């Protein structure tokens, strides 16, 4: 009986009081982050979260990493392929071939590996700067923009390590494509 009363107190204090108080404080001082770091267009409509990857299939855009859940933000996951899994090896080969078809003269060892592997979350918003650079010839062909324009755009979007040490250099594909989209529109 004592245990049950104590459990109810714990539920009220730690299960309700704590998270609700934290929600109140967070909404007050960090509303942008607390609500999912949303990005809005000029009409004030949310067009994505800067933290959650989006699926890009059009040839005019830079593409993100492989996502077995197709960037479904209501879910998350990967196929959890073991290093010895035949399916994984087959998929990686096929994806590499797709990229090599657009990059004549390159060999399989030149394809940045993050571009042809499934991320852990299926929602990875980033690719490596090398993976973005590898896509420039294809994007240039599809958009009519010059390699140099795209190279400049990419440079602006390379995010360095935190405090110069922690994490890895990376490019947010959604933010990159958002600016790319503006360039395409300006050109048209």
């Amino acid at each position, binding site marked *: 009986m004592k*245990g049950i009363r104590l459990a109810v107190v714990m539920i009220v204090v730690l299960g309700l009081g704590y998270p609700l108080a934290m929600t109140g404080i967070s909404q007050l001082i960090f509303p942008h982050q607390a609500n999912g770091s949303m990005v809005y267009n000029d009409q004030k409509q949310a067009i994505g979260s800067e933290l959650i990857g989006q699926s890009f299939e059009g040839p005019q855009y830079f593409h993100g990493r492989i996502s077995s859940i197709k960037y479904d933000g209501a879910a998350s996951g990967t196929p959890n392929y073991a290093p010895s899994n035949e399916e994984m090896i087959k998929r990686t080969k096929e994806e590499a071939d797709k990229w090599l078809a657009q990059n004549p003269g390159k060999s399989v060892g030149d394809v940045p590996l993050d571009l042809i592997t499934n991320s852990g979350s299926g929602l990875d918003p980033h690719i490596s700067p090398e993976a973005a650079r590898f896509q420039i010839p294809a994007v240039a062909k599809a958009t009519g923009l010059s390699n140099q324009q795209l190279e400049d755009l990419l440079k602006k979007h390379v995010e360095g390590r935190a405090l110069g040490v922690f994490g890895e250099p990376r490019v947010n594909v959604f933010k990159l494509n958002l600016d790319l989209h503006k360039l395409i529109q300006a050109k048209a």
Partner: protein
Amino acid sequence: MGNATLQFLLILILLFVIAIPLAKYLQLAFSREETKLDRFFAPFEKFIYRVAGIQSREETGWKKYALSLILANAALLGISYVVLRVQNFLPLNPGKISNMESTLSFNTAISFMTNTDLQHYSGESGLTILTQMIFVTMMMFTSAATGLAVAIAVIRALSSKGKTIGNFYQDYIRANVRVLLPLSVILTILLVAFGVPQTLDASTTITTLEGKAQTIAMGPVASLESIKHIGTNGGGFFGVNSAHPFENPNAITNILQILAMWCIPAALLITYGLMVKNRKQGWVLFGSMMAIFLIVLTVIYCAEQAGNPALNKLGFSSAQGSMEGKEVRFGIPLSSFFTALTTAATTGTVNNMHDTLTPIGSLVPFGLMMLNNVFGGEGTGFVNLLMYAILAVFLAGLMVGRTPEFLGRKIEPREMKLIVIALLIHPLIILGPSAIAFMTHLGTDAISNGGFHGISQVIYEFTSAGANNGSGFEGLGDNTPFWNISTGIVMILGRYISIIALLAVAGSLTQKQPVPETIGTFRTDNATFGAILIGTVLIIGALTFFPVLVLGPIAEFLSIR
């Protein structure tokens, strides 16, 4: 390599900066005497005692302590099971999540009560906003507080003489109010500042740049993430845990989570030294465990950075290391560190998918969970380490032909029997159920990766349950009655047998007449003892588990290299 080493070094420095003051704080928070903390926390604690109807805060012997612990845990378990079964009817369910199936509820309730956080459901589709708060978040506090209370009671028994070891309710409520809650509040605010959502909305739907609809799940994530790590729990808000960009958006949050899950297990070793009034005792344990940790960290980092041998053989680039199942923002260094630490501190949170680790890399989480004491989980890691320390003293005593002593107390057959039971139960509940799973389709049907890796998937699941870790080789199709019930039982045995055994050892040691230290006393506060301890841990671990590791990861490595 250079940058990875620098990152690792800075994390270690930050750990010392946090753990040393925290160790002193822990000593103060659980002190038997009145302290300056009382003025601040006592009113709130008194309020809880009154509402919960806890009249007596008298110290008790180990039996009463263990009984109170079991009653408090059992009540939470029962209520949680009911909450999961009826969550559909409760408020704060904007996503219209249905009630949880009975064997899955059984597994999930036990999983969070035992600080394991094995998840056979996916947070986005399996739990409501309310259950994420009143079940998951709440249980993360209470299971960690239980472990912390046990560790403190055991240390208290070792550092004093008498019939009592403390009052469970007082230790448990102090652990929540004085330690876990303040740390979680600070960490929540930091995590939100760096991008983790904290809202009561379950999701929002947007139209992407390519004009497609994307529904993005969210919720009160930060308040759960903070205690998830501080309490070495590890159960994610979302299915993919800390690999999810909302749970762990960048390198800074990743470092915060690493430090959060490391600080209390590391600080407890120092607190132990402070409380037994011999700081070197604590630092010897700390140093020994750090040595093992740094060795395995090097192994996993090198293995993952070298890339997947099966892909390297085909000419793919290995410059980035093995990126399948990993996130670009963490890369190999922070993914490797997280994996090593989450299994050392038996948290079970993951920022990359362990199923996709290279075979040699996967030996590290396997090994750390099998040892189950390299820092270890909240409180229980210390308890397990202490068992090995006493065992090391015993072995050393046998070698020189003296009655073994630990902290001036004779170690006799009763203590050794209890410790051996607790030590043997660990391999038994891992290898026994694994053997059963291999013999039946109920077990083998869940395997998603063929060949030797399939063996690893099954062993990993029971190792994780037995060590109360909670990470998984998540390809395993484990939401079936067979897996839910079997791992549920393994988690209970893995948690409570060693806790009760060690409380009993503590109870018996505290009543012994201290033996004066002589020149012939085997010292437990120097490097010799550290080396014997490391040897004991590694030899027992290797003798027990090496054969199954050969069948799983090592065979996989040999087949694809």
